[in-house]
């Protein structure tokens, strides 16, 4: 009997023991004189496009000094963060990890990453490297808990040849939502009652929230007032505008269209089934690789009405030091390098990613490694960063999207009116916020 209890308590103690206190090892181990400190760097960049790039950056860093050696481990996309969590709980996390930019504060609140304020005090210039929107997204209660690494922004792409065919000026993209809708319909090609080609669909590469942000700079959440604004007037207008497409084309057509192209294989714009699309700047690589020399144009997102602004939306990734990392000081050194001009420019040029370092993005815009088209897209994206907003997860309602998205879908499927759906979503999220207090 005693043996039983002993065995059980043994395993119970071990399990429960460290789950809570994981910040214990902040002081870490200073490297003994002459001995290199090896730090663990976890990313999900294992593909043959990304991996060599990050490893060259790491290599350069390792060669440039002899106190720190960075060891890179690849973990599968998505699952890497489950492991991150488990390892933080067990007290043996990586020293640096790539994570999502929109949940930095959420993770900070839950004690999963390290406050970088003390490091920035020693190196205050570091924070000026970044696009301000990105740096702000990495803050929690005013302190940085990560540094932005890369980002993206939504742009409008259009097929110039199709424009010409439809009698439109190939160099004049739509500037407002109304123009977008109108020109889109002109570009439709219908055979019988099946669409051979559609001009534009508002849910391709983009979602309702982006249009809401484009309308008035606020999506579902007002970050200044710190509350949900799901059913405010402009949002209802934006959703109604989207719904009009569903009414016009029929939601069966649109859903089938989406399902056909949803799985990362063929893209409708590249395949010539869509005349205009709104997507990441990085989408250009798909046009470049599979578009067979398509002549295309790129412009900022149209504005809702003249003067409301061409706001766009972006996401991105940060590099952060998980809580309880054994070598945070050394991780910081590498973090500085990662977000500095040299490494960032290299990443930008090789991966066609918009990087967080302003100077690097500027330099990449004129890189000789890009084609003319590439330079065109990249420099526009770089410019567009000025009007690109992010949507960090509100700490008061971290899974609010799960309550909003189904309502949006119901509206688009015709089950509710836009106002009804958004009202219901607003109510649900307000409940959630109340319950989370």
């Amino acid at each position, binding site marked *: 009997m005693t043996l039983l209890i002993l065995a059980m308590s043994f*395993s*119970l*103690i071990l*399990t429960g023991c460290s*789950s809570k206190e994981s910040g214990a090892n902040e002081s870490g181990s200073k490297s003994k004189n002459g001995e290199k400190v090896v730090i663990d760097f976890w990313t999900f960049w294992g593909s043959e496009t990304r991996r060599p790039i990050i490893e060259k950056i790491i290599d350069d860093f390792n060669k440039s000094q002899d106190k720190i050696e960075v060891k890179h481990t690849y973990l599968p996309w998505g699952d890497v963060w489950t492991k991150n969590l488990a390892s933080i709980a067990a007290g043996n996390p990586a020293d640096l990890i790539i994570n999502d930019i929109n949940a930095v504060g959420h993770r900070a609140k839950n*004690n999963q990453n390290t406050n970088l304020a003390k490091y920035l005090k020693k190196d205050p210039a570091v924070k000026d490297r970044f696009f301000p929107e990105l740096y702000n997204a990495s803050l929690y209660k005013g302190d940085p808990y990560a540094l932005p690494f890369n980002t993206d922004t939504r742009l409008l792409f259009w097929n110039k040849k199709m424009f010409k065919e439809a009698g439109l000026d190939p160099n004049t993209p739509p500037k407002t939502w109304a123009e977008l809708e109108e020109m889109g319909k002109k570009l439709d090609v219908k055979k019988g009652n099946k669409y051979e080609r559609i001009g534009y669909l508002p849910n391709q590469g983009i979602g309702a929230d982006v249009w809401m942000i484009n309308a008035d700079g606020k999506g579902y959440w007002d970050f200044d007032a710190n509350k949900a604004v799901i059913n405010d007037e402009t949002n209802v207008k934006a959703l109604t505008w989207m719904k009009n497409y569903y009414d016009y084309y029929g939601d069966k057509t649109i859903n089938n269209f989406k399902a*056909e192209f949803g799985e990362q294989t063929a893209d409708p714009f590249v395949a010539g089934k869509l005349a205009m699309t709104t997507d990441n700047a990085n989408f250009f690589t798909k046009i470049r690789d599979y578009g067979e020399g398509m002549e295309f144009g790129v412009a900022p997102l149209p504005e809702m009405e003249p003067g409301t602004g061409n706001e766009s939306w972006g996401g991105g990734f940060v590099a952060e030091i998980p809580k309880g990392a054994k070598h945070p000081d050394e991780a910081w050194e590498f973090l500085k390098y990662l977000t500095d001009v040299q490494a960032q420019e290299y990443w930008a040029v090789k991966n066609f990613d918009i990087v967080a370092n302003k100077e690097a993005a500027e330099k990449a815009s004129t890189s000789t490694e890009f084609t003319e088209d590439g330079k065109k897209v990249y420099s526009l994206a770089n410019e567009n960063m000025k009007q690109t907003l992010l949507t960090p997860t509100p700490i008061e309602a971290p*899974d609010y999207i799960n309550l909003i998205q189904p309502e949006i879908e119901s509206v688009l*499927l015709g089950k509710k009116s836009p106002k009804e759906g958004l009202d219901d979503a607003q109510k649900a999220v307000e409940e959630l916020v109340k319950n989370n207090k």
Partner: protein
Amino acid sequence: MIQMEPKILGKSDIKRNSKHSKTMVSLQRKEGLQGYLFIAPWIIGFLFFLAGPLLFSLYGSFTNYNITSSMDFIGLDNFKKMFTNDPIIWLSLRNTLYFVVVSVPLTTAGAVLLAVLLNQGVRGMRVFRTIFYLPAVLSGVGVYLLWMQLLSPSTGLVNTLLGFVGIEGPAWLTDPSWTKNALIFMKMWSVGGGMLLYLASLQGVSPSLYEAAEIDGASTFRKFFHITLPMITPVIFFDLVTSTIGAFQIFQEAYVMSESGDGGPANSLVFYNLHMWNKAFEVFDMGYAMAMSWVLFIIILVLTVFNLKLAPRWVHYEGEDQK
């Protein structure tokens, strides 16, 4: 279980029977000890690998455990929240129940029929068995991604094949009323896994039984329903119980195959475990997720006990009378 303990009568009887009863008891004890010895590995494994984490998660369900920084006791708050403040949880239970009720009978029946078919000694059996078993071996995210392509409304393989027989297939993964059926369809494809079980158990059905039936002029159907089925009921029972338990915990498919893992469209693929996962790894409300898992445990437990109680009525063990 009948313990054969000798009745204790009187002192004289005891004296007279003592030697006999002592042997009986010691034999039993020896038997009992051997029993414990045999299941010892499981007991040790359970205590060492499972008990601690289980107790931890049980305790955790009464706290606000968030994996990394807090674990304060909050009593029944998680459970209260589940029953009063979580709009998604009931939907998730309904989705899960639908999946269980539809997929378990279908896959079980399918596996039995398949095994019987593949046991007929038709030429090329080995090849056929391998082909039907193939889907069960394919695993991992690659398969789910594959199926997403196969289920494309216009150009996916499934709808193309359906088109050959004149049926217009639905938008499997974007029409909320068809998404669960898409997953069930996928499960049917890999029914070969269960077939293995039945193939093995069919070997234990003595051919002399069939011969005897044939002499009596039994048709194929009668042979199946009155010999085959009864003889393999122990395995059917096993399959039903384990499939039900498994079906209740469906998660991976919905996570990979719905847009951004959120169980869409319209929450049609939000299963109980998916909701739990979101609470645990998105919101980091692990205490709540633990509470959810224990509630699921109770639901499954009740169902399984129900199954166990029902079993003697239809499960037939050749070896002995057993529960």
